[in-house]
């Protein structure tokens, strides 16, 4: 189509990556999940690795990630995406493999798989969407929920006495020798999205030489679970999430 590349003589400078399918996202308005999806697919497009990439979707709001990403994918049981990715990568060590998980999935029910996958230094990219809540099931407390944050299972606010503390699992993973590259990013504004894209690019580049696990936490929003407008949610995220989950690289390959 002409329109795809041109409009009234103007050239297209941004359009949907071809590795995204035409299925409309089912996410709530303003949700960060689909931004991360798109960034992933942009990198895959640009690196030309659509035919070499296999993804793993979690159980969580992004359970249907495979509806949007036009690559071979598997949908894992709740918490087990990194184990599933391990199985795939061990069969296809020459392919690019990534897992994609929410905070309930990766840091609650899947904690053991997360830690052992990274400890084995599985040569995959793990993407971790930290929105401090269980989005899919209707806004329950996640391991990463902030202290005093109100959710449908911490209706009086998260209380550390009985419910524990916000779990900084990414910080824990840094200690593991199997972790090659660990970074915390966000998608709440243009700059953040651009940085995330860089991190994804690096991770896939690294994976070419299979040096260990690359791990990207994305501090993201959940307007529905947080009961805010998308714009409010991004503001809340900056003000409340970043102090606990500060953005930046946590571990970079030595000499890079």
């Amino acid at each position, binding site marked *: 189509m002409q329109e795809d590349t041109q409009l009234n003589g103007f050239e297209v400078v941004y359009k949907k990556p071809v590795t995204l399918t035409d299925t409309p996202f089912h996410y709530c308005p303003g949700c960060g999940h689909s931004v991360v999806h798109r960034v992933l697919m942009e990198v895959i497009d640009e690196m030309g690795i659509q035919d070499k990439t*296999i993804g793993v979707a979690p159980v969580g709001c992004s359970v249907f990630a495979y509806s949007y990403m*036009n*690559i071979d994918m598997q949908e894992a049981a709740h918490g087990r995406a990194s184990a599933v990715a*391990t199985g*795939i990568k061990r069969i296809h060590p020459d392919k690019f493999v990534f897992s994609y998980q929410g905070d309930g999935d990766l840091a609650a029910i899947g904690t053991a*798989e997360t830690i052992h996958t990274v400890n084995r230094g599985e040569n995959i990219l793990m993407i971790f969407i930290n929105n401090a809540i269980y989005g899919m099931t209707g806004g329950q407390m996640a391991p990463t929920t902030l202290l005093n944050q109100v959710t449908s299972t911490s209706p009086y606010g998260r209380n550390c006495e009985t419910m524990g503390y916000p779990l900084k699992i990414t910080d824990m993973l840094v200690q593991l020798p199997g972790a090659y590259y660990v970074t915390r990013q966000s998608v709440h504004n243009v700059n953040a999205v651009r940085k995330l894209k860089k991190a994804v690019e690096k991770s896939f580049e690294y994976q070419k030489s299979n040096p260990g696990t690359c791990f990207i936490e994305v501090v993201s929003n959940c307007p529905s679970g947080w009961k805010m407008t998308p714009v409010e949610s991004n503001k809340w995220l900056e003000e409340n999430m970043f102090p606990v989950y500060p953005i930046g690289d946590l571990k970079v390959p030595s000499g890079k």
Partner: protein
Amino acid sequence: MEDKNNGARLMKGNEALAEAAMRADIDAYFGYPITPQSEILEYFTLEMPKRHGVVLQAESELAAINMIYGAAGAGGRVMTSSSSPGISLMQEAISYIASAELPCLLVNVTRGGPGLGTIQPSQGDYFQAVKGGGHGDYHLIVLAPSSVQEMADFVFDGIRLAEKYKTPAMILADGALGQMMEKVVLPEEGSLPKTEKPWATAGKPATRERNIITSLFIDPEKMEGINIRLQEKYEQMRDEVRFEEIALDDAEFALVAFGLSARVCQKAVDLAREKGIRVGLIRPITLYPFPKEAISNLTNKVKFFLVVEMNAGQMVEDVSLAVNGKRPVYFKGRMGGMVPTPEDVVEKLESLVHSLRKSEI
């Protein structure tokens, strides 16, 4: 220990199974230690590096079975093994694998339960294996070996059936079969050709649509469609029913037993016939699909059935469903790791025959 004369070796059941898997060209084994089957993992860690393929000791059975899901979905010929409690931990993922229609081989070398129980041999996991321990309407193909030879052979059969029907197959063996040594002639390396898996996640070339492995069909009509397909598949599998009949030609009574208890019953048949009791044995080899017809056919011949199991009488239900009220079905069992002796079986048989004769007067 190979004997040049006939190619037979003396091997533990667990090791024969592992070696057979190697010869069946499995691409990957994922597992976690548990008695009485840790030798399987150990054998792989020793032998895999010399040959080809992947062996990985997972952090748990839960991780192992989900690695299986990933690796099977990616097109690998894969297997895991465990024992009762470990298999219980796998139930969620087994349900996923059945729903996503992935072929793989599961091995349960069972022990006495429930709970942590004992590590002695048991058949207490019959229901879990045959009715489905996980959620939803699915079935595994379940093969029950009763010798070290079958521990090896059924690896080939299990993989072949799993790949034919795109479904998980399970070898259900009790601990004794894993631990004992017998003569075994191993299947030949490379004699199980690889099957095409065009549905696998191997990277999407431009020439085909993407492959998706999932068990999620949020629209219940679609999910019902999946279920209908599964049920049709289970219907077709009936062609794969296998069983063994021993001394049934002239039999007045039939023993029904699988696995190790069938071995016990074989001896019981000998002992009982010495005493003049004309008894035979039918041994279900596929526990699912169950040899319902074969047993049903016997109702025209035998006066009653005596089911012998190392559990509280789980297969009795399937036998009764086959017999459908036409003949009495009795049960003799031991539980929690105990093995019935041939003498136990004969004693029970004699008392049943005795009451029958009395009632016939």
